[in-house]
């Protein structure tokens, strides 16, 4: 069963709505214990980095996620700030990230953006697929996904980059290492591309 982590951050409902429509079973895990029996995990997240990490720790989800993801190797998908916290840390705050994928989260450099608007990076942008993954099956890279963020993931290892997107410069719009995947964009709000991605994830 797919379990969506409800630790107080992020748009739980929108992801669930897509799975409802696809007739794919999922559960919202309101407590760490509720993650037992998960064979896929979705980690949403919106808001500030430190606040998000704080909520993950306070809710008690961090320890069990580490066990399920790092030891049992259950596939996990982090969305937006849920992706950013997979990193080692962010310029946005002082908290350490989960550190599951090597890299830092940085603020988009306004000076690299030659035209207005500058921040946030808002709207539909294309992706450039950097490595093969089943999760991107039938995704139209040119149409891309919906983004809304001012910070981005900078991978330390180029092989962890799943897609890149240009906004002032190329950044990692999605990352992947073994069973761990993170997407900066919002698949739950990206029409057929997002639906494909969430469906592919459920079938990993």
């Amino acid at each position, binding site marked *: 069963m797919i379990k969506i982590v409800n630790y107080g951050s992020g748009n739980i409902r929108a992801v669930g709505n897509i799975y409802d429509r696809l007739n794919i079973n999922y559960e919202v895990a309101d407590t760490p214990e509720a993650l037992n029996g998960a064979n896929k995990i979705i980690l949403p997240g919106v808001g500030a980095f430190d606040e998000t990490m704080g909520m993950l720790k306070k809710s008690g989800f961090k320890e069990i996620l580490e066990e399920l993801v790092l030891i049992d190797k259950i596939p996990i998908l982090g969305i937006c700030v849920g992706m950013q916290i997979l990193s080692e840390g962010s310029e946005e705050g002082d908290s350490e990230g989960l550190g599951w994928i090597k890299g830092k989260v940085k603020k988009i450099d306004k000076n690299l953006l030659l*035209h*207005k*608007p500058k*921040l*946030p990076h*808002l*709207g539909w942008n294309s992706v450039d697929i950097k490595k093969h993954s089943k999760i991107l099956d039938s995704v139209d890279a040119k149409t891309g996904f*919906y983004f809304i963020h001012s910070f981005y993931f900078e991978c330390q290892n180029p092989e962890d980059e799943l897609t890149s997107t240009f906004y002032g410069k190329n950044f990692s719009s999605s990352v992947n290492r073994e069973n761990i995947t993170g997407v900066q964009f919002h698949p739950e709000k990206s029409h057929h591309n997002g639906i494909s991605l969430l469906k592919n994830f459920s079938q990993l």
Partner: protein
Amino acid sequence: MLRSRIIPCLLVHNKGLIKTVGFKEPKYVGDPINAVKIFNEKEVDELMVLDIDATVEGRGPDFELIKNLAIECRMPFCYGGGITTVEQARQIIKLGAEKLAISSAAINNLPLLKEIGNAVGMQSVVVVIDAKKRGLLSGGGYDIYIKNGKVKTSINIKEFLLELNEIGVGEIVINSIDADGTMKGYDYVLAEMVREWTDVPITILGGAGSYEDIKNLVAKFKIIGAAAGSLFVFKGKYRAVLISYPINDEKATILNKK
């Protein structure tokens, strides 16, 4: 490459959808949930839903409506109407909206805007400004109105825009009261003014009467939000209610990607 956004803007009044002209003459155009279902099928870039009763009636957001809209929306969804507290803002994001549109509350209270930004992320905070041209005798320029264009404020629009930019709000929607419902094209002077004084994403609302109008706006500003009400809900000169949205080919032409 990042693309401009083409955004239907729906107004909720007495639980139904309406469209106005110059913020007056409301005409019923349908059921909100039904409209969202149609816009899903048309794969719209984003959707904006504004409850125009909430502030005027002095009540908070209609959470039941937001919940039902969010369940249906498979595209990014911005809700506005009656938001005056951080708790309401949190609740709306939790229900599944990506963005909150704040108008009256922001204009009276910039610290509140910052507090809401801290709670839900500033990128999710959208400020809607209803602007109306001043008469030439008053020296030209624009005034900011609140409460559906009924109350004129004394706020200096330039200073306000500069402040919003400084705070770093996620987006500014500029709504031309003069152009509303006329379908005679956007107010480019107003749009240019907002673009000049801010560098956050902006969306222009009011006046779009054809895809050509949107194309012209995009040609001028490159990356911009082009919002419209009448254009996406009316058909023909008798304004028959029919929901429409550019199909992929038309969109590519509008965005000059063909």
